[in-house]
């Protein structure tokens, strides 16, 4: 689809906006609807638009599938790390209020952390699913 100039220009303008919106959904999730799941999908949508326009090879040059796989595992591990961090600081598993001196700040910090983990996982998983579907060729 590289030859459609309107599509190319418009989506070049749109992709950064989509990404910023994903980050907004991610980090504003405590105040407005949203969170890791939604943000991850929206973030991947930007990459999918890029792939549809510039081809799979260009997209995989930007984010190699291996990087997506590693990030997917990293997100889950980040989540678990927050759980263990609160465990070792004297609380229960995933009891975030021990992370920071102030209870509320600790809770908020923990929530942001695990939402980030979920977001990274979802984005990376969605991207690698898309890669593995799009990378196959018709026999």
């Amino acid at each position, binding site marked *: *689809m*590289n030859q459609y100039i309107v599509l190319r220009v418009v989506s070049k303008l749109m992709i950064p906006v989509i990404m910023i919106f994903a980050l907004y*959904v991610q980090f504003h*999730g*405590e*105040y*407005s*609807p*949203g*969170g890791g*799941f*939604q943000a991850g*999908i*929206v973030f*991947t*949508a930007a990459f*999918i638009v890029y792939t*549809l326009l510039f*081809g*799979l*090879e260009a997209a*995989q040059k930007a984010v*190699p*599938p*291996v990087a997506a*796989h590693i990030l*997917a595992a990293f*997100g*889950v591990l980040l*989540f*678990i790390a927050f*759980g263990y961090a609160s465990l070792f600081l004297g609380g229960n*598993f*995933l009891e*975030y209020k021990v992370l920071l001196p102030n*209870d*509320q*700040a600790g*809770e*908020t910090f*923990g*929530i942001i952390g*695990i*939402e980030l983990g*979920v977001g990274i*996982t*979802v984005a*990376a*998983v969605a991207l*690698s*699913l*898309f*890669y*593995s*579907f*799009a*990378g*196959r*060729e*018709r026999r």
Partner: protein
Amino acid sequence: MVVGIAIVRVRNLLAVTMLTGIYSLLVAILFVLLDAVDVALTEAAVGAGLLVILMLATISLTTRKEKVHATRQSIMALVVVSVTGAALIYATLDMPRFGDPEAPAHVHLSPRFTQESPTEIGIPNMVTSVLATYRGIDTLGEAVVIYAAAVGVLLVLGTGTVRRRRNRKDEDGPEAGEKS
């Protein structure tokens, strides 16, 4: 409802995919009307966005037309479906009225969540605090499930890495083999 029937009846899989997306958007609108904005956002993003893309990718790999089998209309299936549907409808009669403040769901844990989570957690979006704190291990499980699903798909379908194939030289450009 109309869209659902259309999804079943239409044989062109491309149209079915589009109808699925429309269905997801309609459901998302329904969720917004029920004040479940978080769920609506998820439904719109996953159902109307990612799912449609993945189904389009599948269609581009397989075929565009559904194979029409000569279906034998089974009476038994109709009976089973009717009985199940009747039982479900009968069960809904026992449910509390929509929005009833005395409903069991609203008198057990909800008051504690709604009244104490703003002071206990300190963030305004109650959905996030329930999701991440009170139900933290649930959410961890969901993340692990998503990861496991990805591992399964990757094992079955491969990673989709684009390799430089030798037979691509006779095509007219690097983009020629791409899905569009």
